């Protein structure tokens, strides 16, 4: 009973992290019918951005906790916007397979980019980002103040340059604060970084029932995930943008005929999905502080399976699927003999297989998932 309860707590924690990533998969799929395989990498980048920030900035703990969560979310949503604009939007009218393969490419690119970056390359990237931002600012000033070049003036809207400039500054800043740390770590593809959890929070165990306890980190994890999911449900169910998002699942042409800029809705979907994956990365890094360039691969795949299990396209499905997946996996870890046991052989890595076993069973018995609609016959 006690083991059951503590495994359940750990499983739920794992599950909420999967659920947050799965939401990204399912929302983007709902609107553009694309499996954006790069969420695992967004998750990883979220963890790293938080890592650099927490190491580089010294602020009172409560503020730092909030920033450690918010800055990665914002950075990841900018990454999501860029991903959509550069990789997927040009392929929107092309066969879906093209976008799918591109998504796999984006995913490989991001993990390898992090694995091959070093103090030196990151420093140059920071300089490049600042220079570009500076160029944009000068350009806007040039047009506004000097009226140069004259031809561009009539339809010129400085506001359009705000988001790219701020993004470049933020990204440059993150590169800049990470360069010394990377040099210090002698970062290589195979290396790992330890997330400085103690700078954020002192781990406390709160006893619940006999030997069962919950940590303050787990509580924070649950509070943040539930909060994010509540905000998401409000956004999707109660706002105009959310309505347009759900309608796009059904008929994108008709959404455009309602006067909705469908590309903007797609961008918002990417922003939300990547922000959630970034948050999941931070939450995960606080619990499992070992960061590597490829730390997102497994969670990314499992969250995808969670989304399929819940019914891809369904938001409730992604939440439930993630939780089921996390709990199932944690119980498998608990039940399998570990190297500390009598067998002296560690079987716990087999728990990774649980996710794929679930995938196979779902595909065989209910391919549309728990909340998915059965595929409709086209007449």
């Amino acid at each position, binding site marked *: 009973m006690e083991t059951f309860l503590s495994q359940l707590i750990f499983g739920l924690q794992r599950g909420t992290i999967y659920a947050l990533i799965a939401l990204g998969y399912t929302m983007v799929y709902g609107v553009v019918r694309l499996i954006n395989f790069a969420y695992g990498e967004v998750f990883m980048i979220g963890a790293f951005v938080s890592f650099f920030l927490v190491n580089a900035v010294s602020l009172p703990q409560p503020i730092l906790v909030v920033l450690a969560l918010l800055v990665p979310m914002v950075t990841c949503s900018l990454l999501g916007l860029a991903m959509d604009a550069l990789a997927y939007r040009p392929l929107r009218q092309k066969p879906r397979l093209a976008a799918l393969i591109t998504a796999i490419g984006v995913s490989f690119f991001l993990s390898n980019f992090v694995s091959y970056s070093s103090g030196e390359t990151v420093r140059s990237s920071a300089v490049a980002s600042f220079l570009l931002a500076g160029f944009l600012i000068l350009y806007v000033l040039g047009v506004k103040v000097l009226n140069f070049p004259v031809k561009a003036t009539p339809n010129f809207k400085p506001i359009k340059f705000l988001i790219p400039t701020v993004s470049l500054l933020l990204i440059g800043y993150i590169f800049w604060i990470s360069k010394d740390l990377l040099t210090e770590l002698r970062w290589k593809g195979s290396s790992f970084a330890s997330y400085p959890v103690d700078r954020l929070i002192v781990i406390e165990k709160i006893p619940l029932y006999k030997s069962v306890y919950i940590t303050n980190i787990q509580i924070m994890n649950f509070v943040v995930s539930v909060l994010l999911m509540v905000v998401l449900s409000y956004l999707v169910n109660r706002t*105009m943008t959310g309505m347009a998002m759900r309608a796009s699942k*059904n008929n994108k*042409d008709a959404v455009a*005929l309602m006067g909705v*800029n469908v590309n903007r809705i797609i961008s918002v979907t990417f922003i939300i999905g990547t922000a959630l994956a970034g948050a999941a990365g931070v939450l995960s890094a606080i619990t499992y502080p070992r960061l590597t360039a490829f730390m997102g691969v497994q969670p990314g795949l499992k969250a995808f399976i969670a989304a399929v299990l819940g019914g891809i396209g369904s938001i409730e499905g992604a939440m439930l699927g993630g939780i089921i997946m996390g709990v199932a996996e944690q119980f498998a870890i608990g039940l399998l003999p570990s190297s500390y046991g009598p067998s002296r052989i560690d079987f716990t890595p087999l728990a990774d297989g649980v996710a794929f076993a679930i995938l196979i069973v779902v595909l065989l018995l209910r391919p549309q998932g728990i909340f998915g609609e059965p595929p409709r016959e086209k007449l």
Partner: protein
Amino acid sequence: MSMLEVQDLEVSYGAIRAVKGISFTVEKGEIVTLIGANGAGKSTTLRTISGLLKPQRGKILYQGQDITELPPHRIVELGINHVPEGRGIFTNLTVWENLMLATYTRKDRSRIQEDFEQVFTIFPRLKERSSQSAGTLSGGEQQMLSVARALMTKGEVMLLDEPSMGLAPVLVDEIFRILREINRQGKTILLVEQNAYRALEIAHRGYVFETGNIVYAGTASELQNNEAVKKAYLGG
């Protein structure tokens, strides 16, 4: 200045030319109908006006403004509402949400409640079902919802693509009665119909399409009495 003016419009799907250089106008307050057989290019024309398709050649002017290159959502903002073929209902949203989404471009948020009331007086069935999923509506009710949505958007011009398709004759009567009523209240209507007989009953003018070209144009009564049109489209 015409409400809507199409000049020398040519639209292709890949190598197939669906519309081959047509021109026509719609004046303020008119009901104009485009009639003709399946595949004559009527729907393609509507989809090009509302920006879902881009023409190879030609121009579309709305109140004198060139809208040919604008994306669909900008064209809706300017005041053209398209009630698409097959109704384009969001079956996973409620009836109320369908109507609400149609107000997306509107700035006068405070007037929306009023317009809901007004639309519900025209379509009482939709009021009864406003919290139901739109997928549970019958074909006729879905068509009503599609027209009601266009009313909620409050444009100047309404484009309708085959509103009578798949409906029982009683419901077709009902839809056409409502269209005439909406037109009396000042809305300009461009109506695409295969049911040429019914369309000409309510239209002021009409254009007859044949394989991507306009072959006849005239007032509704001229077309109703034209021997060739009668033979081909009005059943003798």
